[in-house]
């Protein structure tokens, strides 16, 4: 049996899928994003959990994305996300703005199997005015006339792409304190994960490791991708490669520069073999 690779996992993601992708500080599988670029994925709908970073900009630049729902998109210290901004300006992607806790709540509603969750705030924001799927109702536990409150529908991504530190033989993934990844795994129909390394046994049997695990119940497939979060950071495993992201930000200012970036770091045999 051929072991899974980021490319074999990416091959199972259908065009048009709603993909949940955590941001740069929360274990996105950038390896899977690169593999999706290589496979030429089309019309993906991305969800920032709850914001979007490097991997999202890469997928947008490569023409893989039709739609994005997020609370913000940026490259952090390296500035605005250049291909996101360009695609918005060109009108080639549809954007639905959200606010961070709303994305968490919509995923938590899906995690709990309830049709909606309430959230305070937001009223009077144009974010709400542009979200016909969010609804303001009088607080049904209040007196029923005053105290308006926002209800958010459950949101269940088709596929979540995450990068964990390790996976075990039982299919569990260790993601440490980034528990929002557990929520997105629970809420999503499928989870594809890359990890730095495989470990023996069942981490749920280890009291110290279990709290940082996402149970294999939720994980469809795992591939090893060393430094699979690169150029973003992975917990205490490795830091943010600020020089590389700055290089990306410079190159991705233009379409030609972005194409050159892809050639150099994503599409070549060498880049692929490094996954």
């Amino acid at each position, binding site marked *: 049996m051929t072991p899974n690779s980021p490319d074999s996992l990416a091959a199972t993601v259908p065009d048009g899928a709603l993909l949940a992708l955590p941001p740069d*500080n*929360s274990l996105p599988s950038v390896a899977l994003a690169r593999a999706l670029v290589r496979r030429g994925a089309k019309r993906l709908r991305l969800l920032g959990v*709850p*914001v979007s970073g490097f991997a999202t900009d890469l997928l947008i630049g490569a023409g893989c994305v039709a739609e994005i729902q*997020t*609370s*913000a*998109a*940026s490259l*952090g*210290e390296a500035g*605005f*996300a250049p291909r*996101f*901004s360009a695609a*918005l*300006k060109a009108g080639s992607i549809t*954007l639905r*703005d959200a*606010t*961070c*806790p*709303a994305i*968490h709540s919509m995923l*938590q509603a899906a995690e709990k199997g309830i049709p909606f969750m309430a*959230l*305070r*705030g*937001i*009223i*009077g*924001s*144009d*974010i*709400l*005015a*542009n979200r016909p799927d969010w609804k303001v109702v009088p607080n049904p536990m209040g007196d029923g006339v*005053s*105290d*308006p*409150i926002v209800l958010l529908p459950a949101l269940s991504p088709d596929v979540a792409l995450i990068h964990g530190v390790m996976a075990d033989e039982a299919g569990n993934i260790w993601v440490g*304190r*980034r*528990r*929002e*990844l*557990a*929520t997105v795994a629970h809420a999503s129909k499928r989870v594809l994960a890359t990890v730095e390394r495989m470990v023996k046994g069942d981490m749920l049997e280890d009291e110290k490791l279990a709290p940082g695990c996402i149970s294999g119940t939720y994980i469809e497939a795992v591939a090893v991708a060393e430094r699979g979060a690169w150029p973003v*950071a992975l*917990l*205490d495993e490795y*830091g*943010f490669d600020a020089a590389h992201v700055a290089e990306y930000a410079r190159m991705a200012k233009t379409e030609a520069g972005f194409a050159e970036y892809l050639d150099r770091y994503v599409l070549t045999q060498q880049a692929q073999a490094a996954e």
Partner: protein
Amino acid sequence: MDMTIKLEERLAATLARLILDPAAPPARHIAVGAASPIPAAACWLVKKQGHPVRLSLLHKRTGNPFSEGSRELFDLTGQGRIDLFFLGGGQIDGQANLNLVGTGEWPGKSVRFPGSFGSAYMYFMTPRTILFREEHSARVLVQKVDNISAPGVSEPGVFRRGTAQALVTGKCVFAFHPDRARFSLASIHPGETVDSIRAATGFDFDVADDVPQTPDPTEAELALLRGPICDEMLETYPEFCARVFDRKLAA
């Protein structure tokens, strides 16, 4: 030690004084978002001065304060445990409305900013928000934001714990008055005048007869900023520390 006061130091000390404002509700727990070295320095200044305050620095990679992932900040705030937060904006208007989304037609067809992050929630649910934007120009401080990411005031009946306490810029400090949804000029940084500020500000604001100058940081404050506070911030903000305090992380 170079005793020229840098603007960043002045702003940090100014923010620290606003945090400690005895007229405001107490700040026992302050959260500081990403890419906010000056607010972070201000919070450290409050803490290093010996005030009991818990700081949650959201973007600490190692030793991140949250063990429930990125939703914990919002849940904490929902519980009423975060007393003070900082927000900025690509545009800020005279009613303290914030635009973090972009200019022109929604969702920012003209200039797109990164996005609203949690502002549409935090601004309502935190008892106090200090608005901070170093750039003070008519481009940023506008009469009316193009898009409201988070409103400065809400209609009666809308659940809201607080709003802006003040807006601190590179030129001055404005106090915010939610009762009349207007800013007033609270203090002017050295080198500025009421007229220079009016010229750089797109919104109307109230001006008292006698607007004080923003005080200099004290020597004790400067010593804290340049010493122990720089130590604390070196890992998270190496470029800031190098530029402002001329200190580099040991290789």
